[in-house]
């Protein structure tokens, strides 16, 4: 495959998608503009804010620093798919309960980033939680409520397992 137009076939939130994309189109623009999955947001477009965070083949990545053309054959998951599966329903409820979002612009990326840490199991320290979300900017909440929400879910999940 070489050129300005790239034909890609990938799985997005469990559904097979075949599209022709411009080589320079980023993954997050492809998701938002072509597939109308607008839950992933576009902030800085240089990897700093974390608003565009999605999963590719199970791994958390920046949607603005990957090309759609690179996702041929990949499994992409966005906040829409992860929400529908109920994987983070408890985390979403905790964010709402603790006012861990105000405008919500950072929230999809924040949730997926938190889930990456929570999926490793155990109850991480607040320090570890802060480190994990250090690449996700929130201009509204001041982070305290976000750390509270993530910590409470870790505790509940660990308790539920015992």
């Amino acid at each position, binding site marked *: *495959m070489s*050129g300005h137009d790239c034909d890609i076939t990938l799985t997005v939130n469990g559904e097979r998608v075949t599209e022709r994309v411009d080589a320079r189109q980023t993954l997050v623009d492809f998701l938002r503009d072509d597939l109308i999955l607008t839950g992933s947001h576009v902030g800085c477009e240089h990897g700093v804010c*974390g608003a565009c*965070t999605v999963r590719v083949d199970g791994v*958390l990545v920046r949607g603005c620093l990957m090309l759609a053309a690179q996702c041929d054959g990949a499994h992409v998951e966005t906040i829409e798919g992860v929400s529908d599966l109920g994987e983070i329903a408890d985390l979403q409820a905790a964010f709402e309960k603790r006012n861990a979002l105000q405008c919500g612009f950072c929230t999809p990326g924040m949730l997926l980033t938190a889930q*990456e*840490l929570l999926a490793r199991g155990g109850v991480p320290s607040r320090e570890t939680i802060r480190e*994990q979300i250090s690449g996700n900017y929130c201009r509204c909440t001041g982070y305290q409520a976000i750390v509270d929400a993530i910590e409470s879910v870790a505790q509940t999940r660990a308790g539920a397992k015992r």
Partner: protein
Amino acid sequence: MKPAPFAYAKAKSLDHAIALLAHPDGEARLLAGGQSLMATLNMRLSAPKLLIDLNGIAGLAGIAVKNGAVEIGAMTRHAEAERSPDIARHAPLIALAMPHIGHSAIRNRGTLGGSIAFADPAAELPACLLALGGEVDIAGPNGTRTVKADDFFKGLFETALGAADVLTTIRLPAATNDTRVGFAEYARRHGDYAMVGLAASARAAGQRLAGVRLAYFGVGNVPVRAKAAEAALADGSIDDAVMALATDLAPSGDVQATGATKVHLAGVLLRRAAKQLTETRP
């Protein structure tokens, strides 16, 4: 912003990548983790005509310990090195540095080869390579060659890599019982590039240190060896070593700090790293 138009090609092999780099009608660039390159494209700081994706090439990633060396494939992700028991045991300096690089999502994609090829003067890994006296293998149109860390970093974002070269392997001396390493950096926020950082290695020789190598980052156009401080530390005086930094380093100020502040911070970091160097290995 969005990148200027370019064509995209997925390299099938190392030879294919090298052949594509000889792209006749304009600049071609290799795409590794994209965590530096994509950002510069999005900001239109660079506008190559062709991107050559290294991600599909088999055999360019992986960590192996052989013949007293740790060999790291260029396409090994930061996250893989961070979790690797081989890195923790045989290249402990890299293990210390890894958590300071960006954030989890960045480390999931970014590669060790990309980081060293990019040679950001404030980046951790180029300084680690220099502190360990490592080397890199480079493949190009005329075959392969090996370049020592001391000869690799040439200038601001400039290395021994030519326009049609691919960095394939990073080779570090494997740690022995005598190996001592230290790492310290100062950054405003977790995951930021350092204002000043230090990667250090030495050999324990009785109560003293030998073969001290101090590689600073964030203090010049390239990672910088502090050779007078190295000698002072080998002589056993941390105070003299900190004093010597005034002759070793001549950082210019940037948006974050003046040159004088950077030299001061370099001294603070040296005391931290020296403490780590003199601790026995667990």
